[in-house]
């Protein structure tokens, strides 16, 4: 039931955003359409995990942390690009992750790409290969994952 509700609400929000100055007709059509699609998903996707309200909170938290890190990453990158000597010393590190679900791993790799000075270049089972632009300054390889692994673990497991 909660899965159905979540699908319905998110579909309807996307519909609202896409046809923003809403008329009554559009509201009715959108809710009917979202209802039908949510029903179909409910019927055909039986083994889906039960959606937890707690993970919504953690996803929001993830998003806020992510935006802050994104801005830091950009300032860092701007500093490197503007410096005339181009202070780079690229290296590739291997990092193990504890996350199990594919979605969580993909999100972790995405957020590593957008955190300061690091980019994920390959994902092999539970190993992430991380390319670091200032490899000479790395002391703690686990720290490359940033604060995201903990939050994603709470959200998806």
């Amino acid at each position, binding site marked *: 039931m909660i899965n159905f509700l979540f699908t319905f609400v998110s579909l309807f929000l*996307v519909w*609202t*955003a*896409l046809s*923003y*100055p809403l008329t009554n007709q559009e509201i009715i059509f959108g809710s009917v359409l979202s209802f039908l699609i949510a029903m179909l998903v409910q019927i055909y996707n039986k083994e889906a995990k039960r959606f937890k309200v707690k993970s919504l909170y953690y996803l929001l938290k993830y998003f806020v942390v992510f935006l802050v890190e*994104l*801005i830091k*990453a*950009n300032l860092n*990158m*701007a500093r*490197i*690009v*503007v410096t005339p000597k*181009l202070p*780079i*010393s*690229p*290296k*590739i590190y291997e990092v193990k992750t504890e996350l199990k679900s594919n979605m969580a791993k993909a999100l972790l*790799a*995405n*957020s590593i*790409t*957008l955190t300061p*000075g690091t*980019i*994920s*270049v*390959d*994902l092999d089972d539970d190993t992430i*290969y991380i*390319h670091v*632009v200032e*490899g000479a300054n790395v002391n703690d390889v686990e720290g490359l994952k940033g604060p995201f692994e903990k939050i994603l673990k709470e959200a998806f497991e």
Partner: protein
Amino acid sequence: MQYVGWFFILVGATFSFLAGLGIFRMPDILNQSQAGTKASTLGILALLVGFSFLNTQVAPKLILMALFFLFSSPIASYTICKATLRRNKAKLLLDSNPLLKEGEQND
């Protein structure tokens, strides 16, 4: 309202410019995609936020676009990097600092 919008657009344009400069200055593909992905993501995000301040009618659509961009641009960079790695994986992983030593072979 208008000034906030223009401010965001200025920030976005600056970061997009820095992304271009980064791609121009970096020596090899992995570093280029470092610069390109990060700066252009924030640049386009700021541009879209700025536009949505200027024209509130289309703001929800622009926010959806921004969210989509936030997820799709790391994936694009990941694919490019993975292709580069496939091409010379052994070389990249064996040597601890290979890209600077043999930069001209990695393009």
